[in-house]
């Protein structure tokens, strides 16, 4: 096949999607995806080929700076181990939200059940590390693979579902997961209600870093890798196909894009992202149990995606930050709100989630990232 030139820049994730190309008729010209996505892509502004460019230097700089925090402080550190854990969790949720973005934002399949794949990733890693003494560095790709397969398999029946029905199926999945994890025959592996306790790995080669600092570096590296892969995937030809399926399924299939395969593989890739996040979460949190993966988690991921911007890569980072901050500070925040306006009831974090979700749908459907981009556009177009 002579279709590999858009793939040169992209790595593994894009290569997986290259499977999509299999049934494309040889006559399908190169401009297919662009032609399909031209009329409708307004929210995401998918880059056209001349816009395709390298990641701006400042992003790499920011990532390096984030890593350098650790080196500056050394083991005593500028910031406490607890803060490193918080930062790591932000990045972990960002990876998960990114996975949901790929599916819901870029491919148009709604999922209310990504907490399920988070759980699968977390448990895969925990079981491998705890029961089989596998190194955590190997457990990560294993969790990714398992989740890809799980997502792909769930995506197959889900292919026939659209919109609300897919939301319903994934909603059912999310509510069921804690119960499935307690299933009696797998209790030997999962530890049943008790869950599994892990121990955070130490820095290798006697590097003078605490394990929180080391894991922060690992998570940061994974986050950079995952975002880089996602960007390249979306810039590649399969990535355009993925968006074309969202915008104009009929036109896309006329152009020779295999819709079913695109959707199922996107589901798999999305689950892979969330699974990696789950595995990282299990390792840095040192604990998994069925009740950490209730429907709340899926809601949190959805909120993160919507707040950040459902079809935006930087939005995923904002979303991850939001999920972690709300998770951590919502109690304090709501208490403060309750006291300052003398409400007769106790507000809870979920109230903030709910109100934000609805309000964002009205005023900023593109999320924070979309809103900022809109402001920037208006700033550029302002009258001189």
């Amino acid at each position, binding site marked *: 096949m002579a279709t590999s030139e858009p793939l040169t820049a992209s790595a593994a994730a894009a290569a997986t999607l290259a499977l999509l190309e299999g049934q494309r008729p040889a006559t399908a010209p190169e401009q297919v995806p662009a032609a399909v996505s031209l009329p409708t892509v307004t929210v995401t502004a998918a880059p056209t080929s001349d816009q395709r460019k390298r990641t701006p230097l400042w992003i790499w700089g920011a990532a390096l700076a984030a890593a350098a925090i650790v080196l500056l402080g050394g083991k005593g550190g500028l910031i406490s181990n607890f803060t490193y854990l918080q930062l790591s969790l932000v990045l972990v949720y960002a990876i998960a939200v990114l996975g949901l973005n790929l599916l*819901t934002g870029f491919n*148009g399949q*709604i999922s*209310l059940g990504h907490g399920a794949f988070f759980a699968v990733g977390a448990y895969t890693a925990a079981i491998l590390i705890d029961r089989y003494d596998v190194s955590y560095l190997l457990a990560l790709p294993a969790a990714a693979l398992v989740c890809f397969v799980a997502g792909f398999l769930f995506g197959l*029946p889900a292919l*026939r*579902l*659209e*919109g*609300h*029905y897919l*939301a*319903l*199926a994934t*909603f*059912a*999945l999310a*509510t*069921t997961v804690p*119960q*499935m994890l*307690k*299933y*009696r*025959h797998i209790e030997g592996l999962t530890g049943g209600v008790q869950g599994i306790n892990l121990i955070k790995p130490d820095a290798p080669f006697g590097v003078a870093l605490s394990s929180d600092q080391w894991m922060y570096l690992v998570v940061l590296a994974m986050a950079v890798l995952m975002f880089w892969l996602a960007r390249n995937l979306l810039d590649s030809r399969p990535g355009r196909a993925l968006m074309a399926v969202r915008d104009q399924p*009929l036109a896309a299939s006329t152009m020779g894009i295999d819709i079913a395969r695109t959707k199922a593989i996107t589901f798999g890739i999305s689950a892979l992202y969330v699974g990696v996040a789950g595995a990282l979460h299990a390792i840095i949190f040192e604990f998994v149990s069925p009740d950490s993966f209730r*429907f709340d988690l899926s*809601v949190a991921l*959805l909120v993160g995606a*919507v707040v950040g911007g*459902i079809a935006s890569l930087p939005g995923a980072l904002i979303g991850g930050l939001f999920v972690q901050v709300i998770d951590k500070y919502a109690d304090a925040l709501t208490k403060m709100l309750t006291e300052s306006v003398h409400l007769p*009831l*106790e*507000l*809870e*974090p*979920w*109230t903030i*989630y*709910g*109100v*934000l*979700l*609805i309000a964002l*749908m*009205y005023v900023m*459907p593109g999320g924070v990232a979309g809103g900022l981009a809109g402001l920037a556009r208006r700033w550029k177009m302002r009258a001189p």
Partner: protein
Amino acid sequence: MEQLLQQIASGLASGAIYACVALALVMIFTATDHLNFAQGEMAMFSTYLCWQFMQSGLGFWTALAATVALSFLIGVLIERFILRPLAGASVLSSVVVFIGLLAIFHSLAGGIWSHTIKQFPSPFPSTTLGAGIIGGHQIGMVAVTLVMLGLLFSFFRFTSLGLAMRAAAQNPVSARLVGVRVDWMLALGWGLAAAIGAVAGAMVAPVVYLEPNMMTSVLLYGFAGALVGGISSPGGAVFGGFLVGVIENLVAYFGNLTEKLFGVYVIGNGEKLTVALIIVITILTLKPAGLFGRVITKRV
């Protein structure tokens, strides 16, 4: 054998609740093409209102009547103020708004009434019938469901308002041309759904006790029931609700039986939600129209 009958009877009783929830879901679906993920939490919130009325000294039925009226109002307000502005928005937006509503009702109930489990009285005598096969409350649940169904059926069949609502759901454009106020019909549908949910909540609360999570699994079963019967058919949804209730109990029963006979644990009470998930996915993939629903063909 007696145990089997008992299981079927209690399956019918919980099926009555699923039927109510399924019916509420269908009301909203036929009127607006939306699956209301917040239905369970709305019903839960209504049940707390009912409890509050009873705490202030009202009798069960008076409290329930007040709750139904108040829930109806809440349903109408939600449609008018929260969903109306988003009419015609993408499916994602509406799903997100429903999840937002779910979160709000859930946390408000927890915030106002705390998360501790509360007793909820049953209005029915606690006698049992047929040598302990079915309890008084279970019969009451089924009876209330059937009465409510009868009322709804008569409403839609014999009143002009019911006719107008059906017209608005079936063909909004023509309905508007003959003078039906379609947007108010949608709000009415929401109000009715909320009212039905309130009854379902008050009926199920004595069994599962009152707490913010009480409707989560009920909602899933309600969805399963609605899908089995056909999400566009009210009668089918009720039938599906009962069927799912019975299936749920039979699965647990035969699960116990196989464990007793063969000593192998396959499935039991711990997997009830999984059964619902399997029903949902099977119906959605194999027969999305359900048993009695309209098959929707899409013109391309």
